[in-house]
């Protein structure tokens, strides 16, 4: 006769515990880390490179690249003279806490103030996998359309900042900003939002200034 045992444990709880350990490691080294999530092509790498360019000299920066495709993104950061690590996810659709844990020892943490982590391009699941960063940042881009909050509500729930990228394309692509923001407001009331173009640089200063403030007041 089977007996029922109550469990009530969050799926991926082991990942969450590992994420907490990562955050402790980062805190001890005084590193502020952000996890950048978006669909493929939304502009994660472009926003990161523009952020590095803007903040160079103001903060000591480091990069972790988790994108599936190749190590090209990490190479770009390394070419800019920054500590960078590429995580090969082996086809996995998201970074998890164990992967970041493996990457951290490869970085000179004591020489980094701000660590930018590019997650694998995907709107389905990265939000389920905390990795231990201090901020989760979601990038939405204009060509993806204004209905993304309604189609992927889960991705908008657990982020602390939203970047709307490719606003230079607003004149050419139908995108109802009011409709988009209304959906976001329901899912994540008061979410800090930046409208930017990584291409022209428009709006990037507001994002990087806010980021510097967050690093200072951590």
């Amino acid at each position, binding site marked *: *006769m*089977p*007996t*029922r*045992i*109550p*469990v*009530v*444990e*969050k*799926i*991926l*709880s*082991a*990942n969450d515990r590992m994420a907490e350990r990562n955050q402790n490691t980062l805190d001890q080294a005084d590193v502020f880390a952000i996890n950048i999530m978006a669909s493929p092509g939304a502009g994660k790498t472009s926003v990161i490179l523009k952020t590095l360019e803007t903040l160079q000299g103001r903060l000591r920066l480091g990069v972790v690249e988790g994108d599936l495709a190749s190590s090209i993104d990490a190479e770009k950061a390394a070419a800019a003279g920054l500590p960078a690590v590429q995580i090969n996810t082996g*086809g*996995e*659709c*998201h970074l*998890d806490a164990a992967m970041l844990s493996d990457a951290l020892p490869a970085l000179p943490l004591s020489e980094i103030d701000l660590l930018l982590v590019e997650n694998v391009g*995907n709107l*389905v*699941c990265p939000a*389920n*996998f905390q990795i231990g960063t201090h901020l989760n940042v979601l990038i939405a881009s204009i060509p993806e359309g204004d*209905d993304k909050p*309604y*189609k992927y*509500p*889960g991705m908008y*729930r657990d982020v602390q900042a939203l970047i709307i990228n490719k606003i230079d394309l607003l004149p050419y692509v139908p995108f109802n900003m009011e409709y988009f923001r*209304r*959906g976001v*407001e*329901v*899912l994540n*009331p008061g979410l800090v939002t930046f409208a930017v173009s990584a291409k022209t640089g428009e709006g990037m200063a507001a994002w990087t200034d806010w980021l510097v403030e967050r690093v200072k007041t951590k």
Partner: protein
Amino acid sequence: MAIISLVIMHELAVTQSILDISIRHAKEADAKRVTDINIVIGQFASIVDDSVKFYWDLVAEGTIAHGATLHFERIPGEMTCEACGHTFRPGDISFECPACSSVQVRITQGEEFRVDSIDVE
């Protein structure tokens, strides 16, 4: 194609986690075998489909949870209107309250993502 393979990988991690949690709790109870696993997944929490059952046979092989039946309780997404109190299932093009058209609404259900209980022998 690409999207499909992405989701599959994601569910392998979910399957492994369900197995680890179940075995840990079964062993704490000195159980010899896990027969059933009751899982609760909300609509907003994660996309988890039947591929979990497919992976289950692979990852549970050789463990005390081998052959266990997975039961999924699906919790639909639910929003509540702060203006009129109406509770409704949101559509995928609008979160507007169908009763009063307010957009002052909040998610009140659908973020569950847990192993609720296991049946053991």
